[in-house]
């Protein structure tokens, strides 16, 4: 499952199953035999809109098992709403697998996985792999309120423990999920995916704790395949992921370079980001 081997292509999938674990949240199971073998934790896909209008939508690959993968939709606008209307039997073409997954080759013992919102979709496979490779994985899962916390049992199912946080305290800790990183024994590695503010907070805590953190970033995507440079994030020019650009022009001699979240990412080490 090296990303080098995971040559992306257009996969014609068929919707197998559909469920709504929470309000405005839809999980679609997709029949995609050739794809499953190529999927690495942290990979995403670009879903081609069924009606052919508007841009393709970036979605994390949630599950990948047998000949089935799944995606989780949180309806925020027209494209997610259209995809959420898909029913079993409907066709869905996707570009996949895309991006570089999490760096899970040599894992420490204790891994904390921080997730919020749609970020959850990008970390289930990572949790599974951590456990399979002998690490203790704990999901730190945050949301506004209880109803928005879904599929906790899937994480327990792959052998991860789970702690929740809600803004309103309706379930678990009341407050920021990232506060949980400082409660109890600190992890040796942090993996995170969710809204940018949550990722920034995670980076802060990680630095404070002196723990390395891998962040899967969200940006507005155009192409999703590295062609448009619309999805960049500033990173250290010295990073292996930095585009091999020379120092920027005379007007802007910065020490960072803008890397593409869809191509060089979406996973970056917190310490290489210059955001």
């Amino acid at each position, binding site marked *: 499952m090296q990303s080098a081997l995971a040559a992306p292509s257009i996969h014609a999938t068929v919707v197998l199953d559909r469920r709504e674990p929470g309000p405005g949240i839809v999980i679609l199971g997709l029949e995609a035999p050739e794809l499953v073998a190529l999927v690495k934790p942290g990979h995403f896909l670009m879903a081609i809109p069924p009606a052919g209008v508007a841009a393709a939508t970036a979605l994390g690959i949630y599950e990948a098992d047998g000949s089935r993968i799944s995606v989780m939709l949180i309806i925020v606008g027209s494209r997610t709403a259209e995809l959420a209307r898909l029913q079993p039997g409907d066709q869905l073409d996707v570009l996949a697998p895309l991006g570089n997954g999490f760096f899970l080759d040599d894992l420490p013992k204790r891994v904390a996985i921080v997730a919020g919102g749609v970020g959850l979709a990008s970390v289930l496979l990572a949790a599974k792999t951590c456990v399979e490779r002998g690490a203790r994985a704990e999901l730190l899962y945050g949301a506004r309120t209880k109803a928005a916390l879904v599929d906790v049992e899937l994480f327990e199912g792959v052998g991860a423990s789970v702690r929740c946080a809600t803004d309103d305290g309706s379930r678990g800790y009341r407050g920021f999920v990232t506060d949980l990183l400082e409660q109890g024994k600190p992890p040796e590695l942090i993996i995170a995916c969710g809204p940018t503010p949550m990722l920034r907070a995670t980076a802060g805590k990680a630095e404070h704790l002196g723990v390395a953190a891998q962040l899967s970033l969200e*940006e507005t995507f155009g192409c999703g395949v590295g062609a448009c440079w619309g999805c960049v*994030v500033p990173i250290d020019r010295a990073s292996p992921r930095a*585009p091999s650009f020379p120092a*920027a*022009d005379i007007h802007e001699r910065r020490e960072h370079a803008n890397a593409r979240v869809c191509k060089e990412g979406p996973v970056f080490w917190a310490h290489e980001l210059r955001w």
Partner: protein
Amino acid sequence: MQKAAVATSPLAVRIGRLELAYPTLGASGCYGSGEEYAPFIDLSLIGGVVLKSVTRYPRLGNPTPRLVHTPGGMLNAIGLQNPGIEHYLEHDVAKFATRPCAVIGSVAGFSVDDYAYVGERLAARSEIDALEVNISCPNVADEGETFACDPALTARVTAAVRAVTDKTIIVKLSPNVTDIAAIAREAEAAGADALAVINTVRGMSIDVERCRPMLGNVTGGLSGPAIRPIAVLAVYEVARAVKIPIVGQGGIETARDALEFFLAGASAVCIGTANFTDPRAPLHVADGLRAYLEKHGHGSLREIVGKANVGFADAQQYEGDSG
């Protein structure tokens, strides 16, 4: 280039001295260098790729967000992020030799001199089949007046690039002007071999929750189906004003969309934003064009160029040179 194909295919077209086996090009800035889309489509089935615009010095580009989706389209403000011409020539251009389609370089700049310098260096490379001149940039010497919005500046940039290369140069016009035909005439008179019509339409979107512009750069360029009627009219008007071929673009997703441009007077088309919906779009367009020509009994695409443009006198002539 695909010379063999060119002879036979009813979809083959010629833009200046550039022969294309297909009339469908990946649009500048939307198609990377082509390789980004190679996993998804066979690049030998498109006419070519127009590369991302390159400038004299490296540019970090604009802050994010650089993109926002709008009804029927998208705003972008990338800010011409690129490594600068020296690094580009040294590290990137050699790779383009392997493309199974035409490779058109795109030149941008902030002074007439920039365009001439970058244009000359880029055109000198054998991997580059032709040059597109992106004049939708501010001229720093002139209170940032956009080259494409001023007839005189358009003429000066065109002449400057014309002076440094014999390769086909395609000057890309902006729709953000009162009279695009007047600008087109200047570019033609100054030596452009062809015109790309249109670049993006200026626009902005506001984040009503955060009370600030959606784009890091505040304003951006609108692309996608939303601008198609604006682009079709621009092609229609430019086609009546000049004799040189036009590369139409702006919201093309399907063969029917592309046909609007050919019938208005375009000899080839670029497909940009539609690739973000489905990378197979350029193939679907080519297939649909072939079917349309058969259905309507046309031997070649060239026969329908300008067919819906009553004031378009030059279709014949095109057929002449592009035979």
